[in-house]
């Protein structure tokens, strides 16, 4: 005889495991919250270096003529300080956005994972009860 509850539980678990979002959620939940957010923030730091570098290069290409015409120490000093301040501002904004996104993703992944764990526990309990 088919145990309807067991089939129901196994189908729910399989639907989570086979689903793309379910797989991602289960993978995310292998990390602790702090580690997952920290990892994302490290990736964002690396990204911010490249992205700011490209943006700076584009700005330099736009203002190349002005820079070559007015090239002196004060321009280098002032420009350097402005670039450093802008980079830190850009980095802070990116890290705040990453923190928010990673927190939301982890929360969503935890929700899906807890649903999976509940089904697993019920299934394990049904096997124990049978024994």
């Amino acid at each position, binding site marked *: 005889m088919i145990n309807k509850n067991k*089939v*129901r539980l196994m189908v*729910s678990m399989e639907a989570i495991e086979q689903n793309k979002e379910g797989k991602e959620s289960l993978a995310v939940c292998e990390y602790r919250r702090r580690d997952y957010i920290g990892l994302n923030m490290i990736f964002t730091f690396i*990204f911010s270096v490249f992205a700011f570098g*490209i943006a700076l290069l584009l700005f330099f290409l736009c203002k190349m003529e002005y820079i070559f015409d007015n090239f002196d120490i004060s321009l280098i000093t002032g420009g350097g300080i402005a670039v450093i301040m802008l980079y830190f501002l850009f980095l802070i904004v990116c890290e705040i956005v*990453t923190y928010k*996104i990673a927190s939301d993703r982890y929360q969503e992944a935890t929700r899906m994972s807890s649903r999976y764990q509940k089904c697993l526990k019920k299934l394990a309990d049904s096997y124990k009860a049978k024994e």
Partner: protein
Amino acid sequence: MESSLIFKTYVNDFYAKYKFILVPIFKFILTFAALMLINMNLGYFEKVNNIIVALFFAFICAFLPQDFMALTLYGLVIVNLIAFSKEIAIVPALLILLLWLVCARFNRKELYVAVLTVVLMNIKIGMAVPVIMGLLGSSLSILPVGSGVIIYYVLNYISKNATTIQNVHDDSMIEKIGYIANQIFENKTMLVMMITFVLCTLIVYLIRKSFLDNAWTIAIVAGILVLLIGPLLGGVLVNVDIDIVSLAIGNISALILGFAVLFFNYSGDYSRVEHVEFEDDNYYYYVKAVSKKKLAAPDKKVKTINSREKSAGEIADFDENKEYEEIIRQAMDEHYKN
């Protein structure tokens, strides 16, 4: 009303059943359309400037992740520009790389939206994209939508002014690059449209997520207003030429497609809203429950009159299989409800 709900149920069931075929078909059509647009507007690289190559890449992109589709298209754009002139290619290539980096870092799942924006803007219905993404996406959808607008105007500028750019500052590479960079970044139309699209996406998203009655409808109307007022205001403030006919076509398409998305994705019946309050040990709950407009599609039952008599064993097997299918169907329904 009932027939529209039945039609909607059939369409949703059809999509759920054949999603594994429909999604690759959509990706194929989008990639092919984008490649043909690249070939028509740029087409400087002879080896990829034909329909066979476009079909080949579209076929591959249909079965690979959407990251690959965006990378392929951006790569082909840069290759076309390099084939025309290396100096012209530098600034657009860096800009496309920057936009791809930003979208890939924060909103990788919607990279295809930038491609979709470019394609739809070429056929004058690009204004539907911010409304649709505001309804279906998240606040991060502003990144691919904004990127799509920028890439469209950059490609548009280069395709229309290629010969002029080639002849300007012919002897100095640095001056030519500086000229191109200035022309791209000082394009006020691009700036106005990008701000309009981003604002529209944000406003539609925020209103849609709010607890207002008929939030989706209000969001669409608000989005259309932003799409109307934004370019006109930009035209007045920064002296930008706006094509009124394109604006009208864009807004009408946004309205039609917005309500189509609303019809297929949301079926709240605001005439039967319930407000409930309850509490548990940790929280007080104030819940607004909006019932769904639902109508089950009629099942067709086929009755065979002259069926042969079955043995007892066959009948038992048939019943057990039927029971097994019913259990699985119920379990899947419960899973998708949750």
